[in-house]
């Protein structure tokens, strides 16, 4: 089996290594980086815009171009997250948690290098998985029905509640607001409209990207204006040596990288997607860290973990698309439409009937990511230098960027106002010390989790034991509950140990 995989892959490289395809690859990556940098435009929109251009191309060239836009967008999404606290892509939200503080401390170069390298590592892990385990993995993805999906979402939520450093009630309140907002729009399971109050603009619901651009990007500008009117990234040294210095420190974090890559691959092949993966990667890194409280203040693991996971998930999301015809992400959905227009039918037979195409694509994943890494690393000093521009100039351009981003998601002016509103909400949240991440997480996964739960309940006729009906769903659910109750459990353990020592305990400290 492995022998044939390597043969096929080598054949794929032969297909790919023509001047035309290499050129398309570079063009795709550069376009993708731009798409990723512009918040709101995003991978799916970028790919969709260029789709008509590819109709006259041969399928291999077309998929190389479009998938390289995707890789480029995956790389580029980290840039604005780190520099301005604006997630360029939904899966970059978790990167802002530590990436932005790093940039503020003058370590933007280090953060960018870490993000890009981690992205590359994640993608590589996913491509290796696709190369050698495609048929096996495709079968595994089929085991995911509604209860399994719900368990995965539940796990993501629980890992957040169980380990935030803010007060638990604040995390819960923030998350519940997110659930509320996620419920606006069409209710897939009930078939009716909810909380649209007759406004056409609310039919879309609250788009995750519009919300996070306001919540994270705009609110940060408001806060900075109030506090000191300056970024602290001015003294950043601008040379390529930062890349080597950062690389030298990376092997220390091998455990974080591997953990995130596994989480990412796993969520990518189940359509949990890159967004859930990035949050879970961050959560896992924090959970296993010796010093979890320092997360959020500029830890390099806080950048490495979500980026590795997001890129691993984003890449492995193409596997269910090719092998099963189900897209694991928004961009994969657009590529899927493209495949059909080029005359290729995604599904179990694609690997057999269009081996040239499939292995050409897989080969382009290797080369595209290597080329992408080199390209983005070369731009690190350039992007880090942006922070030397005086704050008023930066702030006004960031606000314009936020507005363009919010508009680009659906081409709706209403979304710009929504973004401004979310900016104010974000500002108030930060002032009151409420965490924003749980809101963002609940907004993006809330309705999917709700759908999965209600689908499960229809199928099981209201029986909750279905969440332990097989080993797969049972272990995910149990792990989720364990994470949720961890703080309580560890509290009890501590107290038991204390009373066991015979030390008199004072009033319960909550």
């Amino acid at each position, binding site marked *: 089996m492995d022998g044939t995989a390597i043969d096929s892959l080598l054949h794929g490289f032969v297909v790919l290594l023509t001047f035309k395809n290499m050129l398309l690859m570079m063009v795709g990556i550069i376009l993708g980086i731009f798409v990723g940098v512009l918040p709101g435009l995003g991978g*799916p929109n970028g790919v*969709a815009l260029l*789709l*008509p251009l590819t*109709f*006259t191309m041969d399928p291999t060239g077309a998929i190389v171009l479009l998938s390289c836009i995707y890789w480029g967008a995956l790389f580029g999404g980290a840039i604005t997250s780190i520099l301005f606290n604006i997630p360029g892509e939904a899966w970059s939200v978790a990167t802002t948690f530590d990436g932005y503080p790093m940039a503020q401390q003058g370590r933007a170069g280090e953060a960018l290098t870490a993000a890009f390298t981690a992205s590359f590592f994640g993608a590589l892990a996913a491509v290796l998985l696709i190369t050698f385990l495609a048929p096996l993995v495709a079968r595994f*993805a*089929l*085991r*995911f*029905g*509604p209860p399994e999906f719900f368990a995965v979402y539940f796990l993501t939520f629980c890992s957040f509640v169980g380990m935030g450093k803010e007060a638990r009630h604040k995390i819960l309140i923030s998350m519940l607001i997110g659930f509320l907002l996620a419920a606006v*729009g*069409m*209710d*897939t*399971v*009930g*078939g*009716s*409209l909810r909380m*649209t109050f*007759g406004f*056409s603009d609310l*039919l*879309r*619901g609250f788009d995750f990207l519009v919300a996070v651009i306001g919540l994270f990007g705009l609110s940060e500008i408001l806060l900075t204006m109030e506090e000191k009117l300056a970024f602290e990234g001015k003294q950043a040294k601008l040379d390529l040596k930062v890349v080597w210095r950062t690389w030298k420190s990376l092997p220390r974090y091998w455990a974080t990288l591997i953990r995130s890559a596994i989480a990412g691959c796993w969520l990518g092949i189940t359509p949990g997607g890159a967004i859930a993966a990035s949050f879970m990667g961050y959560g896992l890194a924090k959970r296993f860290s010796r010093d979890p409280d320092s997360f959020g203040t500029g830890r390099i693991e806080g950048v490495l973990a979500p980026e590795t996971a997001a890129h691993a998930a984003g890449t492995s999301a193409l596997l*269910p698309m090719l092998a*099963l*015809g*189900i*897209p694991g992400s*928004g961009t994969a*959905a*657009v*590529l*899927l*439409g493209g495949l*059909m*227009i080029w*005359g290729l*039918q*995604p*599904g*179990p*037979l*694609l690997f057999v009937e269009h081996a040239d195409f499939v292995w050409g694509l897989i080969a382009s994943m290797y080369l595209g990511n290597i080329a992408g890494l080199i390209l983005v690393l070369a731009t690190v000093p350039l992007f880090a230098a942006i922070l030397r521009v005086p704050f008023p100039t930066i702030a006004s351009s960031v606000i314009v960027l936020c507005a363009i981003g919010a508009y680009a998601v*659906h*081409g709706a002016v209403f979304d710009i106002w929504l973004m401004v509103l979310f900016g104010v909400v974000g500002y108030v949240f930060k002032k009151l010390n409420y965490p924003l991440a749980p809101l963002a997480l609940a907004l993006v996964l809330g309705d999917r989790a709700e*759908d999965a739960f209600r*689908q499960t309940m*229809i*199928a099981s*006729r209201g029986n909750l034991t279905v969440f332990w009906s097989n080993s797969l769903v049972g272990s995910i659910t149990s792990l989720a509950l364990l994470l949720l109750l961890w703080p309580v459990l560890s509290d009890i353990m501590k107290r038991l140990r204390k009373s066991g020592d015979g030390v008199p305990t004072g009033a319960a400290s909550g």
Partner: protein
Amino acid sequence: MNARFVAALFGAACFASLPALAAWEPTKPVEFVVPAGAGGASDQMARTIQGIVQKYNLMKQPFIIALKGGASGAEGLMAMKQAAGDPHKIIVAQSSLYTIPFATNLPFSWKDLTPVTLMAMDEFVLWDNAELPYRTTAEFLAAAKKVSATEPMKMGGTGSKREDHILTAFIESKAGVKFAYIPYKSGGEAATQLVGKHTDANVNNPSENIAQWRANQVRALCVFDKERLPYKAKVTETQSWADIPTCKETGLDIDYLMLRGIFIPGGGTAEQVEFYDQLMRKVAATAEWKDYMEKNALKEAPFGPAALKAFLEKDEPLHKQLMTEAKFLAAP
């Protein structure tokens, strides 16, 4: 003689070009509204049309595709309603034109738009998992009937109170069975959930299940139409689309089709309708379009606004009746 002939030809040419001069055509890029998500069937149809128009240079202005899939496409419908009088917007619509308003009280009716033409009819097929022992519709329904009261079979589909759900309710009342209907976000999801045995059957459109059918993971039991599909080329190792029996042949007397048609916003003039109708006829005459139709097992439909209107006037009351019987209508 010769001169007269030339003069006659010239006259004829003038005559032929006169209406062309007076005819309307777009003066700026045309927004092609897709009331569905990226990569779905409507999106593919719009992009195929866009690609053909571009390739054969059928229109001076380009098409720009605008995905407005919010609230199962209600977003796109409302955007068209609000664009009344703007002939630079067209939409590729389907039965959700009336199923969404009926189910949700959305203030929309197809009469808010100007019908241009049908592009095709989409079929529905009853599929079950190939590993189930039921080889025919009759066997499947008999088995479903047996468990109706205790643990009903699971039927997957796209959305709730929409085409798939309505058809499921139709089968339930005709065959006297009960299913547990599980709504998914897309037909693709319904297809993989069937292969993963999380559901027992679905009523997907041909294009939504073709990949799984070709891999022998699902079985096509019957097609909900009066006659079989015309496509005789083998799709799986042993079967073509034409080999699937109609549901009526197998004893389940239901025919149910979904329109895929083109509309412009309300208040469109006859010239504007004529322009888009002619454009779509030219698109439909290309080899690419025929190929697209066969690949997705779409059924040909008559062109022109009159045929579309006639279909709508028959299909809307049918849906109202079916949805009333299934209790899918929203409370007023």
